[in-house]
């Protein structure tokens, strides 16, 4: 069937529209992917874990929990903040990946400091230990957990001093110093590794 040039068939017009959209838009997508430094794609699949909906859902939940904790702390309600954060550390989580480990490490560190502010030093130490058991690589997240351990011990030291427990306070002071030293050592290693990766002039 012949088609008048002035009145193209609806099917052709739709294809032209879709094609124009696709061509223009894929150019933008290509630019975005190039800027990310992604290597050329291949058709093969290796079965390695990829960033998926479950991971991002977990990260979004952790994000919401931390912001909810911020608001609770602003209102002076640390217990509510602790509850928000425990929904991240105690609920179901996706398959372990670096992102999951690091977000959990941060949540445990924050919980440790909040619990120490509440005077529950045993629970605070348990949180920090749980985080350290997860974040075993030399990263700033592990260093942050040692910082949290130092903060917990420092608060404990002050509480023991006020209670007149001189020897207990001295032990807590020593534990805090050791934790801070470890945190600094880890931070130095991270900095050294970052500098080593930089191209030399």
């Amino acid at each position, binding site marked *: 069937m012949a088609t008048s040039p002035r009145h193209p068939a609806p099917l052709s017009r*739709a294809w032209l529209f*879709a094609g124009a959209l696709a061509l223009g838009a894929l150019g933008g997508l290509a630019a975005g992917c190039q800027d*990310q430094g992604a290597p050329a794609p291949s058709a093969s699949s290796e079965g390695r874990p990829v960033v998926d909906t479950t991971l991002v859902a977990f990260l979004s939940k952790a994000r919401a929990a931390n912001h909810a904790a911020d608001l609770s702390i602003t209102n002076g309600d640390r217990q509510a903040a602790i509850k928000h954060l425990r929904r991240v550390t105690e609920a179901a989580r996706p398959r372990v990946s670096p992102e999951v480990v690091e977000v959990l490490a941060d949540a445990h560190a924050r919980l440790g400091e909040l619990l120490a502010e509440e005077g529950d030093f045993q629970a605070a130490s348990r949180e920090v230990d749980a985080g350290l058991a997860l974040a075993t690589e030399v990263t700033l997240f592990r260093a942050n957990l040692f910082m949290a351990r130092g903060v917990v011990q420092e608060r404990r030291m002050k509480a023991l001093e006020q209670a007149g427990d001189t020897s207990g306070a001295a032990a807590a002071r020593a534990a805090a110093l050791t934790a801070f030293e470890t945190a600094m050592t880890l931070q130095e290693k991270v*900095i050294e590794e970052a500098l080593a990766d930089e191209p030399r002039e």
Partner: protein
Amino acid sequence: MKSDDDLPDPAEASAEEQARADEQRRAVDDKSDAVVALLAAAVSPRDLDDEAHDRILAQALGAEALLPAVVEEAPADAAEIKAADGLRRALDGSPADRAEHPLASLAGALRAAHAPGSIAEIRNEALLRPALRGRAGGGPRVLYGAVAGALALAAGIAGLWISGASDGPDTPAASLDGMVEVRSTAPLFSVEDFPQGMGPDRKDTTSERIDKITSARSADLRNNRYRAWGLD
């Protein structure tokens, strides 16, 4: 000249013959005689043990070097150790490292065949879509084209947005199929992003970090979705 009566009786074995016969009988009984052992094996063959079977097979195929026992006896030389180290580093390394090594893909396939893991939902979608698309036939093409165009437009906008938002050291680890893999978020942060001070000066920055992490991985998820949809 001796008469026949003087000769030994041919029916009677001499002492020497008797001794040799006894020795032969013992060899037959304990199968120490090679000919006897071969004859016994031919008459009533037994199963070979696995090692002997492998050795015979390898000899027949001219592939003795493949025998584990032979490998154990001959330690790897420097070139073999170097090649093995290279393969191990490639397998432990980034997708780009694996793509460069000629055996990494084969090793990955063998590992997957030996112990297959669960397939990510988004990868599953990426594999299924082309097949389903191929079966779709000539259905509502106009609708399909319009939807594809709209998705492509969204992808383009997102691609430009990603290009502006990803100016950082966190280079995505894209696998060979273009999917962005999970990885440490450490490159997103420096020491200053973590609280350093003490007492009232100490400001918690956990929320700021999780904001950054979620934003970065949401962009990665978008990339993977578009890959799954075939928009690459």
